[in-house]
């Protein structure tokens, strides 16, 4: 295995899919993962230099599962997920209406077309007409879509309405407005940076990376953990940079407790501090504090506060509940417990809303049904996880407790494996509630390069329905992302998404480039 071209990142978490994804770029890396997964033994490589790839692969699950749990406890994760679901539900309705509208093409992303003025649209149409011949020999004609400004969407209020009596053009307009609104809200939320210039998503890496270090230490040994720490300390990548800033803040606090120990020796000891800081940053109440609840903004506040207050013994307490309450008070934000209680109310409200939507629905019932199934499972797991966090924050912030005692109680996400550039015989795969996302036949044998298992199948009341719904919702969300937003979708699904969209709308999808 060539160490020069290896990478640490073998996983991914995207709220489009309610589970975690693991990606392997070669049969060799996949083999290491399978061996790790199938081995009952704890493999500690203390005293030996394990390959960087092996260290990363053997700990990627801990990293990704942490993302899943953090997405459940953080208002940011909940709102991002809800915006995605709303964009998908409204987007699919708009796309279904598009078939009955006049025109030969659908501009993509529609979000940009909606915000484009007449002059911009005319220029874009000229470009399409010169670059792509229209099959009927005429010119490309998009459906009539009113131009909107960003300000129009600032005042736009989401609502559930019966649209069945309205003309298709009006229905399309309403659904498109709703989907664009959800995408714009998502975009503002995900791009709001703090003074340090980091995006909210980078803060989720801090807790996942710290959990990963501890998992490596426990299951692989000290040397691999130090090797991983070396990567974090040296890497120019943004998330490693942010992790180092948390470490600096953690060391500032930790040094007050152990004044006689040098900084190098304190790095491992400061991991619990990094975790306390990291989890606290994720708990801002978007409902009550709006963008000030962003993990990036909370980090700014905490940094300013602790630089002044780090000597205060209240920052050195091991009782996490008291520590977080002290930081809430010192930074002037909503108390973390109130934020979580309001998150539970938000979850219940979402369920009521989708139930109403389902009753009012006029088209293909599979869309609201799958959305409801996914939201029900999400809310159920959120309720359980937030309940634990309110009762005992140590379960999430104390890495020893999180990795050794909490995992049996916390929900385990769906696990998808993606093989990049190769496939394997399905006869070699096993796992709970196994589903193949792709299948290829070759010389009498069936192969796949994407499959999903549900390690939490026993925890879920409707495991089969949930698996179906999660995969279907992801696929519809990808179609909507491709047609409506500027969000990238995995390249291997782009061709199918385009074909599906052209089939639904009965029109050619033309991209606005740049």
């Amino acid at each position, binding site marked *: 295995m060539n160490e020069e*071209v290896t990478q640490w*990142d073998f996983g*991914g978490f*995207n709220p489009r899919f309610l589970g975690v994804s693991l990606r392997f770029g070669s049969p060799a890396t996949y083999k290491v993962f399978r061996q790790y997964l199938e081995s009952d033994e704890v493999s500690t490589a203390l005293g030996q230099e394990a390959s960087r790839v092996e260290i990363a692969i053997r700990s990627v699950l801990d990293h990704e599962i942490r993302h899943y749990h953090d997405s459940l406890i953080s208002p940011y994760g909940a709102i991002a997920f809800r915006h995605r679901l709303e964009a998908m539900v409204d987007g699919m309705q708009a796309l279904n209406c598009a078939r009955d509208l006049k025109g030969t093409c659908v501009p993509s992303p529609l979000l940009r077309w909606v915000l484009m003025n007449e002059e911009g649209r005319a220029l874009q149409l000229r470009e399409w007409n010169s670059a792509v011949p229209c099959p009927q020999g005429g010119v490309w004609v998009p459906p009539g879509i009113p131009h909107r400004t960003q300000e129009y969407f600032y005042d736009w209020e989401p609502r559930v309405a019966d649209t069945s009596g309205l003309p298709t053009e009006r229905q399309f307009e309403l659904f498109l407005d709703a989907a664009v609104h959800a995408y714009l809200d998502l975009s503002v939320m995900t791009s709001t940076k703090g003074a340090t210039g980091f995006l909210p998503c980078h803060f989720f890496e801090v807790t996942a990376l710290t959990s990963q270090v501890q998992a490596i230490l426990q299951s692989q040994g000290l040397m691999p953990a130090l090797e991983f720490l070396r990567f974090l300390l040296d890497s120019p990548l943004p998330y490693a940079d942010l992790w180092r800033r948390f470490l600096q803040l953690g060391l500032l606090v930790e040094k007050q407790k152990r004044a006689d120990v040098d900084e190098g020796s304190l790095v491992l000891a400061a991991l619990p501090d990094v975790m306390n800081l990291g989890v606290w940053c994720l708990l801002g109440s978007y409902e009550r504090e709006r963008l000030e609840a962003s993990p990036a903004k909370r980090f700014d506040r905490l940094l300013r506060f602790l630089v002044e207050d780090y000597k205060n013994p209240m920052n050195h307490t091991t009782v996490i509940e008291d520590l977080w309450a002290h930081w809430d008070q010192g930074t002037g934000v909503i108390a973390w417990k109130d934020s979580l209680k309001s998150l539970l109310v938000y979850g219940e409200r979402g369920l009521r809303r989708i139930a109403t939507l389902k009753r009012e629905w006029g088209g293909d019932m599979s869309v609201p049904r799958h959305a409801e199934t996914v939201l029900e499972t999400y809310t159920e797991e959120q309720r359980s996880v937030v309940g634990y966090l309110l009762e005992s924050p140590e379960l999430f912030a104390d890495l020893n407790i999180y990795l050794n005692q909490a995992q049996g109680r916390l929900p385990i996400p769906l696990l998808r494996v993606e093989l990049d550039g190769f496939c394997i015989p399905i006869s070699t795969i096993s796992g709970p509630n196994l589903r193949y996302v792709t299948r290829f036949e070759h010389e009498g044998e069936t192969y796949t390069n994407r499959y999903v298992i549900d390690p939490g199948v026993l925890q879920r009341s409707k495991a089969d329905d949930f698996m179906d719904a999660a995969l279907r919702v992801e696929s519809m969300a990808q179609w909507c992302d491709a047609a409506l937003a500027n969000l990238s979708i995995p*390249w291997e699904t782009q061709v199918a998404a385009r074909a599906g969209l052209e089939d639904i709308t009965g029109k050619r999808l033309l*991209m606005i*480039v*740049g």
Partner: protein
Amino acid sequence: MRVSITGEKDFVDSLRPTFELIDRQGPEPDVTELHFGLVEVSVIVGILSGISKLLEFIQAQRSKSNSEIQRLQVTTALGTMLLELKKDVSAEELQEQLSKIIVT
């Protein structure tokens, strides 16, 4: 034709001469879904001088690169495609792949 090309920074930078007009060039902020790994990723957007010049430059740059697989994401009015370039990729192979999103 306006195209957007995303890929490893040095590779993308080397394609500048194939553009008649450049609208935008710089780091690509969100590459989490693009399968480029952890390399520094850049994007260039503009009007292409011609497909044959692009093919020639991609091939020339590819032969200089040491990576086993080089990836480029190309977007045109007709869609997005991820090109997986082997070291010995031929102009014909490239043209065949790009023909799905570039009308020649």
